[in-house]
């Protein structure tokens, strides 16, 4: 049963326990760096949240990595299984791990029609008790005796800390160096008090381009031991004898169990599991990261709407106050969310649905909206509320790969997940120079907010810049200059570097009354994406647009803006804490400020579109951000009249039974519509992967405009 969220209850409990929620950490910040101090950079693609058989995934580490960085060409990758424990040995490869004929008897991609029936990939899928599905106990030299820490089950599960430290790290580093791409290991933390969080503690790891003596993931392993809700081991990491205390965190340290040397328990009602204790422990984990690895860690809540609203007794969900708490605790570590979740091909998109957490416990917003959770998808919602404070709170996507549902890993159809890089990507600025493409540089890029994310290769390049208009230069000339700079940048897959201009994650500081010119250049990649389907997009077919499902076209871009009114104090509970839709979780000033489409953007070569927007006489600190889609406004069941994405759960309602009984909304009536779609009375409905490929979006991170006599944008540089 869910428990009604109670603001006063939570606030009192938290402050009584440790007083951890500090007054908002207002940082001083400079305006965007001078152009000449910015090393030239490039946007690189990656994904930081996916699973192997070391948790509940279906592939070996090696095959998952191969799919991600080879088949789908990601530039960087973080292998991040759940915390806790698992019995399977994901370091064993599929057998044989070498180029093999496509699995499951499918037509070879070399001889089949285009698109090929399978993805080229190494390694036959492993059957039960084969390859990475074998247990640790059956594959380690000394069997059970080699598995450390608490546990009595047979086969004995290995704690994730041991998997990471002693087994998985080596595979990760070997793969990274062999493939010459930054690949490292993280953890999808089962967050105490909440659901899941994508984390990394990089310190000690030495992925490519580092060479020489092998690094280690000891700190990542320790973090998992200390702070994962599902890690109930009390061994202190066996011979490691870890102590999870944090310097100068006396109140929280007082909660540490003397045997386990960590805060035991999570949300609950009594004892180790007290009300809100899990949330307190999560904050302590962020504080620990900040102490141990302040520049090489991150803490990014995953699919944060899926499990429903926060529950102070159960461990699920996030409300906006928790995101504020995280960011306040360490803004250099908790700087964003995965509001575009994985599982985009599942029966209910993103796995968001009614009753996700049990009867009456719906995902927040019930479904995703164009594949994005309501926290980011609703204009004026949670994300805009956080940006309206001037926080550094950035948008990310992840694939959260586990399996392909009823299909094998080498098949191109999916009724569950897409591989990393197949459908969603995070595009992150990495600056060249001595650190060029490195894990540290990528984490710096994630932290900077100079990134964007999207699905289906709707766009693959973006230059988004805001410049204070120079009044001494004729307006048309100035606009042309900034547009050209954006065009040049997107051509180089880079950013605009001009003094007085800022890009994503940055701010410009202007005098009141100044004009600001916002220029955008995007590339709508020509050709096809990774979709195996070339029949017409069924969503667009409703409005008489015939467009191959694997060749999407960017329809329009929305410029979304809102005012910045400053950080909200935790003591102002009415404004600090609240559910989605409440005043605390809204920014009423946010709205769609401008819409660009083929009528008002300039088409350049190679699918590049260039456009500008002038904000005249700014008086208030504010931000602008972008989203774009392949679907026009008022596409039935997909977008409303203003172009906002509609609830995917309405398009694809859940069938609780094994056999579909509830019709979808959009028919898939082309002869090529695949057999696995929801089919009722012989009618196929857009669903599963087809629904995902039909409805594509991208989101940029914001650019802030700070007005000198207005509110300071504290979270951005």
């Amino acid at each position, binding site marked *: 049963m869910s428990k009604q969220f109670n603001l006063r209850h939570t606030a009192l409990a938290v402050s009584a326990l440790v007083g951890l929620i500090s007054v908002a950490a207002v940082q001083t*910040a*400079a*305006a*965007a760096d*001078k*152009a*000449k101090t*910015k090393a*030239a950079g490039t946007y690189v693609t990656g994904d930081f949240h996916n699973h192997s058989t070391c948790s509940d995934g279906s592939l070996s580490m090696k095959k998952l990595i191969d799919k991600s960085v080879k088949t789908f060409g990601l530039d960087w990758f973080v292998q991040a299984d759940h915390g806790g424990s698992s019995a399977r040995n994901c370091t064993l490869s599929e057998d044989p791990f070498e180029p093999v004929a496509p699995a499951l008897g499918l037509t070879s991609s070399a001889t089949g029609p285009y698109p090929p029936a399978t993805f080229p990939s190494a390694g036959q899928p492993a059957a039960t008790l084969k390859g990475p599905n074998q247990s640790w106990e059956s594959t380690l030299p000394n069997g059970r005796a080699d598995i450390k820490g608490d546990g009595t089950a047979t086969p004995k599960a290995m704690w994730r800390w041991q998997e990471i430290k002693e087994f998985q790290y080596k595979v990760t580093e070997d793969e990274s160096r062999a493939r010459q791409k930054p690949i490292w290991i993280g953890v999808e933390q089962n967050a105490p008090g909440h659901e899941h969080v994508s984390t990394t503690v990089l310190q000690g790891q030495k992925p490519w381009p580092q060479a020489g003596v092998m690094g280690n993931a000891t700190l990542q392993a320790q973090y998992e031991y200390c702070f994962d809700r599902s890690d109930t081991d009390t061994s202190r990491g066996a011979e490691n004898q870890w102590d999870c205390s944090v310097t100068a965190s006396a109140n929280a340290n007082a909660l540490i169990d003397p045997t386990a040397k960590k805060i035991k328990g999570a949300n609950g009602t009594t004892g180790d599991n007290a009300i809100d204790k899990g949330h307190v422990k999560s904050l302590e984990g962020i504080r620990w990261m900040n102490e141990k690895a302040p520049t090489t860690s991150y803490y990014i809540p995953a699919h944060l709407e899926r499990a429903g609203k926060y529950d102070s007794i159960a461990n699920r969900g996030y409300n906006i106050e928790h995101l504020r708490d995280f960011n306040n605790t360490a803004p250099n570590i908790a700087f964003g969310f995965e509001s575009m979740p994985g599982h985009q091909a599942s029966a209910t998109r993103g796995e968001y649905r009614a009753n996700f957490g049990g009867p009456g416990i719906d995902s927040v917003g019930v479904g995703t909206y164009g594949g994005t959770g309501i926290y980011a998808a609703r204009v004026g919602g949670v994300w805009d509320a956080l940006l309206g404070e001037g926080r550094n709170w950035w948008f990310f996507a992840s694939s959260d790969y586990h399996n392909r549902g009823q299909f094998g890993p080498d098949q191109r159809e999916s009724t569950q997940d897409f591989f990393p890089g197949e459908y969603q990507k995070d595009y992150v600025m990495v600056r060249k120079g001595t650190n060029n493409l490195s894990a540290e540089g990528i984490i710096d890029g994630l932290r900077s907010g100079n990134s964007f994310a999207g699905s289906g290769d709707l766009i693959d390049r973006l230059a988004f810049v805001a*410049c*204070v*208009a*120079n*009044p*001494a*230069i*004729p*307006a*048309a*000339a*100035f*606009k*042309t*200059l*900034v547009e*050209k*700079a954006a065009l*040049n*940048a997107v051509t180089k897959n*880079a950013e*605009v*570097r*001009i*003094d*007085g*201009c*800022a890009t994503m994650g940055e701010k*410009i*500081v*202007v*005098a*009141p*009354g*100044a*004009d600001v010119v916002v220029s955008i250049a995007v590339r709508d990649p020509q050709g096809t994406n990774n979709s195996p389907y070339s029949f017409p997009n069924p969503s667009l077919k409703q409005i008489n647009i015939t467009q191959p499902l694997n060749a999407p076209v960017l329809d329009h871009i929305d410029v979304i803006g809102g005012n910045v009114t400053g950080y909200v104090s935790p003591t102002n509970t009415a404004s600090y804490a609240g559910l989605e839709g409440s005043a605390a979780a809204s920014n009423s000033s946010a709205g769609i400020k401008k819409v660009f489409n083929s009528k008002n953007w300039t088409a350049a070569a190679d699918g590049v579109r260039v456009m500008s*927007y*002038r904000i*005249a006489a700014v008086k208030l600190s504010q931000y602008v951000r972008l989203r774009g889609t392949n679907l026009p406004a008022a596409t039935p069941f997909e977008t409303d009249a203003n172009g906002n994405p509609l609830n995917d759960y309405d398009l694809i309602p859940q069938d609780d039974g094994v056999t579909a009984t509830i019709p979808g909304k959009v028919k898939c009536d082309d002869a090529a519509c695949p057999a696995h779609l929801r089919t009722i009375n012989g009618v196929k409905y857009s669903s599963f992967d087809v629904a995902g490929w039909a409805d594509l979006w991208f989101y940029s991170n914001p650019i802030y405009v*700070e007005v*000198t*006599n207005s509110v300071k944008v504290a979270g951005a540089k």
Partner: protein
Amino acid sequence: MNLSRTSLSTILVSALMTLSACGGSDSTSAVDSFVSKVNAAYAGLATSSGLTSAAVADLFDAKYLDMGSKKTDVLGTLSANSAALATSPELSLFPLAQVTNPVISNCDANSVCTLNATLINSDADTTSVDFSTKVIFVAGVFYFYGDQSSTSPT
């Protein structure tokens, strides 16, 4: 007919004959002088004093109007920036640029001409665009005249 630094001989005999104060070499030097003044003033916009200098004010004709912005608006914005710079060290500089390759043409009976030139920013990555704007020639001196449009850019 163009008036440029490299095609000076045509100045007197064509469009600019209507400009009473305009002579061949004088006009050429007027173009050069104007561009020099523009570039010097633009470069000065990085400093508080430069933002409010007479040099920048002297770039604009009294009837300047460009996409709704009058000379007083321009100077007011620059002045506001100068004031803000004094109290806000984080204030972003105006993006700066230099003007090259000026060509003046299509002068009318009111001595209003078209300036075609190249605008270049070289802060880090060089950005170069050709642009066109109106200038006015008064007493041997060119000034920005603007597009005379009262419509604000969007």
